[in-house]
């Protein structure tokens, strides 16, 4: 892992990888979105609104996955002092927050015609809202620190402690009575019919690749800013 601690080594991989992730992600997301809108049948109970699944589930996956990545970056920063871990955490926070917000909004849009309400203070929705506030808190703490490019130890610890919310979100529909349906996709299989399920894998893959491209772009921007500042300081000191 420390091979990639050198930003130059990281950039030699990130530069060619970024367009591939972005274009591949865009292609898969468009294909999955088109299939979800046009090629799949409406659900026998939910009707057309089931199509919201194809954007809601990837948003939920990336909102939660983004925080898991933040927590891992926090551990890597604190334990191994990897110089890119703080940069990665700073880069992940914004897209993670955006997809978390998208999950809440698209879920609310789905809830109105399906449940008859935009919002319900049940375990799943409330814990997801807590995750959004955790993201806002992380961004505020990261920006308040004096570390250029990286994040403070406090932010790294905050990311690790905040990860306690992830199993709560995941198990909320099992632990408490909820309007939200139980887990549909588990390691043991899926309760969703294959005729409706397959485009979901395309949008999940597509949005995940796009998320990766966004994180790489943001990491490259942070590294470039840090290098510019360091160079300008050296020039000013002459």
């Amino acid at each position, binding site marked *: 892992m420390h091979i990639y601690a050198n930003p130059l080594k990281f950039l030699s991989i990130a530069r060619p990888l970024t367009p591939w992730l972005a274009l591949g992600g865009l292609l898969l997301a468009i294909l999955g979105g088109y299939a979800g809108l046009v090629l799949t049948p409406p659900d026998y109970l939910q009707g057309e609104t089931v199509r919201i699944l194809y*954007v*809601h589930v990837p948003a939920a996956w990336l909102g939660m996955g983004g925080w898991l990545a933040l927590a891992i970056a926090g551990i890597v920063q604190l334990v191994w002092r990897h110089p890119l871990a703080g940069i990665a955490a700073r880069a992940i926070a914004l*897209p993670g927050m*955006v997809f978390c917000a998208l999950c809440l909004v698209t879920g609310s849009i*789905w809830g109105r015609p399906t449940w008859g309400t935009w919002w319900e203070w049940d375990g799943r929705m409330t814990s997801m809202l807590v995750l959004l506030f955790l993201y806002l808190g992380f961004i505020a703490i990261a920006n308040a620190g004096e570390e250029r490019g990286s994040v403070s130890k406090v932010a790294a610890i905050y990311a690790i402690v905040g990860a306690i919310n992830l199993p709560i979100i995941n198990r909320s529909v099992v632990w408490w009575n909820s309007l939200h349906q139980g887990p549909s996709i588990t390691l043991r299989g899926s309760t969703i019919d294959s005729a409706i399920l397959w485009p979901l894998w395309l949008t999940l893959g597509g949005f995940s690749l796009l998320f990766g491209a966004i994180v790489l*772009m943001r990491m490259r921007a942070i590294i*470039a*800013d840090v290098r510019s500042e360091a*160079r300008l300081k050296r*020039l000013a000191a002459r």
Partner: protein
Amino acid sequence: MSGQLAYVAAAYGLTIAATLAVTGWSWWTMRVAERRADDVRRK
């Protein structure tokens, strides 16, 4: 049916707009930062 499709359109529209916005913003800030870094390096 058409009422349901309006909700679907709203969800897709918001997702596409937000995803393109965060992707475009990230790409633009990367371009600006890397160009500035190149300019500074040449000084």
